[in-house]
């Protein structure tokens, strides 16, 4: 198995995925650009350094599994898969279009590298937990990484696997929460406050680390250390900024919905191209 992680320039990858996400949501006139932009660094480190996957054999049985439970952030996900060679970059321009392979929530049907289809919140962590349990029962070494949104931590079904995974000592399971602090109709604090968030996961039996979700070095350092404790599932609470990278989108609820068009689109691209 050849995985050329070290060859990937993470800063360059980050820049490219971020730009794709803005272009894709622009061309598609789609929502959720803010939800894509908050997890760009997390995806870049996962696909550039951590995940043992092979784009030439997306179904390699012993691959690490990545599940995007927050399926609405799929623009960035499709972008990182295309950038790391799972499918042609040209597909990205077809996002949302009639007859495209890429709908507005991650879908496995025609997309190499997508493990499962998501979109309805509160599903991914259970499926990931089932995969982790199957791996344990088969004495397989692969890990399962699951990216959740903070909003979907309102779902009771998210907390069912949070209860279950420690009971079965699934230390091959890693939950990453993109904690950008904004959900559909307001801030997390205003809607359903999750704090003390890390303490909740700890109390349920997870080994928890918090990280600046935009600091590539920190993310890599943390992700390289999983499992944090043998016999416990790992949780990474990544403090992120919704809309990160485009100044006028940052921390704005509006950009959960609004599609970048006209001058706003031009300004966003100019800012992304000017920035390192």
């Amino acid at each position, binding site marked *: 198995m050849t995985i050329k992680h070290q060859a990937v320039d993470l800063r360059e990858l980050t820049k490219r995925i971020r730009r794709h996400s803005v272009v894709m949501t622009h061309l598609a006139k789609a929502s959720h650009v803010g939800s894509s932009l908050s997890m760009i660094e997390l995806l870049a480190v996962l696909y550039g350094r951590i995940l043992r996957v092979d784009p030439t054999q997306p179904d390699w*049985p012993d691959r690490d599994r990545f599940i995007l439970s927050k399926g609405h952030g799929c623009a960035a996900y499709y972008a990182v898969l295309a950038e790391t060679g799972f499918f042609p970059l040209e597909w990205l321009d077809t996002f949302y279009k009639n007859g495209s392979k890429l709908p507005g929530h991650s879908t*496995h049907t025609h997309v190499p590298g997508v*493990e*499962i*289809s*998501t*979109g*309805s919140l*509160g*599903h991914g*962590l*259970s*499926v*990931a*937990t*089932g*995969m*982790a*349990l*199957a*791996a344990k*029962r*088969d004495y397989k070494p692969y890990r399962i990484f699951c990216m959740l949104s903070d909003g979907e931590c309102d779902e*009771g*079904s998210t907390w*069912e*696997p949070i*209860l*279950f995974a420690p*009971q*079965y000592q699934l230390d091959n399971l890693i939950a990453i929460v993109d904690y950008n602090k904004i959900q559909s109709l307001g801030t997390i604090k205003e809607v359903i406050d999750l704090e003390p968030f890390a303490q909740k996961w700890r109390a349920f039996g997870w080994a928890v680390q918090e990280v600046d979700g935009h600091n590539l070095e920190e993310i890599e350092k943390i992700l390289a250390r999983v499992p944090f404790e043998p016999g416990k599932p790992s949780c990474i609470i990544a403090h992120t900024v919704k809309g990160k990278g485009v100044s006028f989108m940052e921390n704005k609820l509006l950009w959960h919905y609004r599609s970048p068009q006209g001058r706003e689109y031009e300004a966003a691209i100019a800012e992304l191209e000017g920035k390192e």
Partner: protein
Amino acid sequence: MRTAFIQELFEIAQNDPRIILVVGDLGFGVVTPFMEELPQQFVNAGVAEQNMTGMAAGMALSGKIVFTYSIANFPVLRPLEQIRNDVCYHKANVRIVAVGGGMAYGSLGPSHHATEDIAVMRAMPNMVVLSPGDPVETRLATRALIDFQGPAYLRLGRAGDPIVHKEEPTFEIGKAITVRQGSDVTLIATGALLYDTLEAANSLAETGIQARVLSMHTIKPLDTEAVITAASETQALFTIEEHSVIGGLGSAVAETLLEAGTYPRYFKSIGLNGEFSAIVGTQEYLRSQYGLDANALVHTIQNGIEG
């Protein structure tokens, strides 16, 4: 049926490590041998059916054949979106097993009666719906589901359902079993009411009416050939199910006949009329109250023919 299922699965699982049984913290005494002797193939998901079902999909997508097991609506309606999105959309090899189909849990009340499950499961893309008629069919259905590709729903009765088949019939998913020959009317039954239907047919014979009885153990895909043949060879057709008349066996049969342009002289779907089974009592009592025991069936069938 419950015992037949667990025993059969236990037997097969001993030689097939792909099989995993996931229970929603139910099955006291029943699943114990499986739990103790095959711990690597057993999971208690706790009282958490959504996670049970999502995990089952995850395990199935990792090469396992996963049976989720709980009572009546619990493995069906509570995690319905997990069934739709995680199981059916991914064509995962998950078999959802509900014990207590219909009003098997009698006095426990409507929360424990599964009376819309067939309708809901039928509507799920890629889902196959099985509702065996007795413990013999249950064993055969369980065996047939092992190497079946894709999701399936297995609706069972309870422990102690009467045996209809004295000899093992040929069982194939999607093929009705003719339990009794007859040329006057056809009674199509699904689930444990097969026994009562056969009793009703025997009573009708005493009045000179020869009823054909079909066990429709697979509701989806429906054996349309058997249905159309019955409608053309016999005068009247009755479907019998311990389930709402909305969306279940009766609906499936009616859709088939109308689309085929084969109309029996008389058709009636016998089941619960879209109401909650709120009367208190045993399954036998409830069947009599809701017109589903052998006596009531005879009455309804005679009225239908004579009317």
